[in-house]
């Protein structure tokens, strides 16, 4: 593992650690209102290390909660998109022909639509504030690229001679899929799944920013940023704290995914 990947993993583990341990680290609950410290900047008095917002809520507690929500959503949604994407892509790739053409045409059309449309259409379909609906919606968007990648890999694999060799050796189709195709595809899937997580976290933040995502009293990094942007002139930390947290989180996930991807590529030399 390269140095960059190691740093990424370390950062992620640290953040996750803080996020999970937050309830024990800080005396403040995420929705507790501290009337004496409304919109106060980061400091050490009253244990408001990252400051408070307009309503007196501790930003550290809220920020950590937001991270928990964001990571959970990102990972779950990535899982959903992996499952749908791999099933779709592998089927299209292995069966080929008309079925493949049809399945990928569908992916192409949805892919061509700017994601904004998807957001809007989904926003109108689900009642506001439904967390489950939210993460299904996000996962439903994320599977497209995964499907394309898996289909591309499956297609390329199917034409490789070792598949022909397996057929000539008398292996059944199910055996070939299980013992040859899946092990060769799984490396790519894991690498891209790790890259999908930050994209999905970003997407969720975008939805929250628009007011369509996580609702009160829960916070997500997107909704915190939205609030912070409104108070930007008077309390810049309200924007900078969630913005920094989001950036660090996304960069770390991206580095990890990139690291996995290049590790696979160098192994193949």
């Amino acid at each position, binding site marked *: 593992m390269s140095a960059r990947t190691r740093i990424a993993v370390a950062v992620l583990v640290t953040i996750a650690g803080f996020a999970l341990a937050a309830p024990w680290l800080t005396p403040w609950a995420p929705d507790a209102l501290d009337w004496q410290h409304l919109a106060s900047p980061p400091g050490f008095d009253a244990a408001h290390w990252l400051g408070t917002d307009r309503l007196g809520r501790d930003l550290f507690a809220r920020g950590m909660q937001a991270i928990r929500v964001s990571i959970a959503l990102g990972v779950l949604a990535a899982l959903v998109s992996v499952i749908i994407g791999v099933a779709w892509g592998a089927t299209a790739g292995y069966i080929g022909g008309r079925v493949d053409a049809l399945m990928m045409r569908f992916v192409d059309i949805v892919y061509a639509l700017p994601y904004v449309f998807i957001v809007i259409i989904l926003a109108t379909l689900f009642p506001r504030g439904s967390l489950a609906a939210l993460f299904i919606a996000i996962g439903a968007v994320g599977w497209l690229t995964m499907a394309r990648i898996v289909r591309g890999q499956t297609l390329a694999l199917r034409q490789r001679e070792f598949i022909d060799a*397996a057929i000539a050796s008398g*292996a059944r189709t199910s055996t070939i899929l299980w013992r040859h195709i899946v092990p060769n595809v799984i490396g790519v899937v894991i690498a891209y799944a790790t890259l999908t997580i930050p994209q999905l976290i970003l997407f969720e933040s975008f939805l929250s920013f628009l007011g369509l995502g996580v609702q009160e009293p829960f916070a997500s990094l997107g909704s915190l940023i939205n609030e912070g942007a409104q108070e930007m002139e008077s309390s810049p930390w309200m924007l900078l704290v969630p913005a920094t947290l989001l950036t660090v989180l996304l960069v770390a996930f991206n580095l990890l995914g990139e690291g996995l991807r290049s590790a696979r590529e160098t192994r193949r030399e």
Partner: protein
Amino acid sequence: MSDMTPLLRVESMSVAFAQRKTVDAISFGLLRGRCLGVIGESGAGKTQLFLALLGLLPPQADVTGRAFLGNTSLIGALVGAGAREVRGRRAAMIFQDPMTALTPHLRIGDQVAEPLVAHHGKSWTEARAEAVRLLGRVRLTDAAGLARRYPHELSGGMRQRATIAMALAGTPELLIADEPTTALDVSVQTGILALLRELVTDGMTLAVITHDMGVIAGLADDVLVMRSGKAVEQGTVDAVLKTPRDGYTRALLSATPRMDEPVEPAPVPAVLAESVPLSARHVSVRYPVPRGPFRRAQVFLAVDAVSLSVAPGEALGIVGESGSGKSSLTRALLRLSADASGQIAWLGREVHALRGETLRALRDRAQIVFQDPFASLDPVMTVAEIVAEPLRALRPALDAAARAERVAQLLDGVGLDATYLGRRSRELSGGQNQRVAIARAMVIEPQLLVCDEAVSALDVSVQAQVLELLASFKRTRGTSIVFVSHNLAVVRRLCDRVLVMYQGKVVEEGDAAEVFAAPRHPYTRLLLESVPRLDPAAERARLAAHAADSA
């Protein structure tokens, strides 16, 4: 036309990457107007040597020693503009694969004209006109029309001639050709070799890098034999080819199949099987060629009503160039493609209409070894798993221990010991991988083994070992072999009968000895004439005759 001062002088030159030497203290001289042939197998360092001379290696390469082109020092002194003065202007290099060596989005004429603009200060108009003349010089017809085309519109042979024209554009003193004919069809190779020979006769100094003894015989005046970066033997071509001193050179020469080597008579098969291992009648393979969404697809006939049969213990060779349909035929014979029609039977059982489980169960009768040793092995599986796969699929009665024993037996039979069991294909060489592929094919003791260009990607010495292995299967187990190859000498060494294919049809068939000694069909004659002779005098005569023919 020789001058006594060497044009190219190399003294104790080495190339190392992170302490590992790819070229180890090589010294030689090349006189003007002569051709030096550098021969060795893969990994010998031949290409590295010349890339280092031209300064084309990456910066991590550590090049030591001395080398001179005329009076110019080539090592350590070439930087920037000085290097570019040598490259293309005084020494030009042409590379192995003409398709990837030419820039895809630039016209041929422009690419040939480029050195003229860069080195001779000509304007583009003048350079383009000169480029057309050069294309004619390398015997390309309709040079003006060709100059306006793109690389992908030309055939392999035409592209290689264009790269030669491009190299000549800078009017170099030294021309370096790296495996100039390896990527080309046999019938096209002669033309390129003849052209290069002509250039030497006209005064060009040429260095040819190759793994093929035939190319050495035809082009080289002097020979340098390389192995693992070291110079193993040097001398004139007659001396090295006829009276080699070094053991490695001798081994290379004996491993190279020759058209004039003695052939053993077809043996009586040791095992008599009740039925013919392979019988095929009127097999045709058609591919649909799509012509856009609204037009009916055209049909391309890759194989046209071919019939053949193989007797027990017999080796049948199928000879043809690219486009002959031989690969499509082998896939059809093994029932690996769906586009075939005709009757095919394995050991008397008709299989052309079978599908699914019924077909699968019969697969222990016929097995195949493919050309590319890396592509035919699953990269994530270990050698043990790969060789065991046919047993798992077709001998379910065997338990894990019995399978393991059988796998070990087979690996031993192909010359690989137990340490190979846990390795994966990327850790092994081409030759080792191909042996694994053969072990996999033979583990269920098929009556028929089909080899599709199975030795074409291997070094000459490894090739000889694999051929011997196949011959031993034929002799001791009575396995029938169908051996597909474009290399006639290899086919002659192994096979009893031979089939010649051209554009999907069988144009000649018969006993190998007879067909090669007295071919009847013009195409067979063409193929035989294109095989390089290993005697320098004979080979030069052949090339000269070819040049005279096409002048």
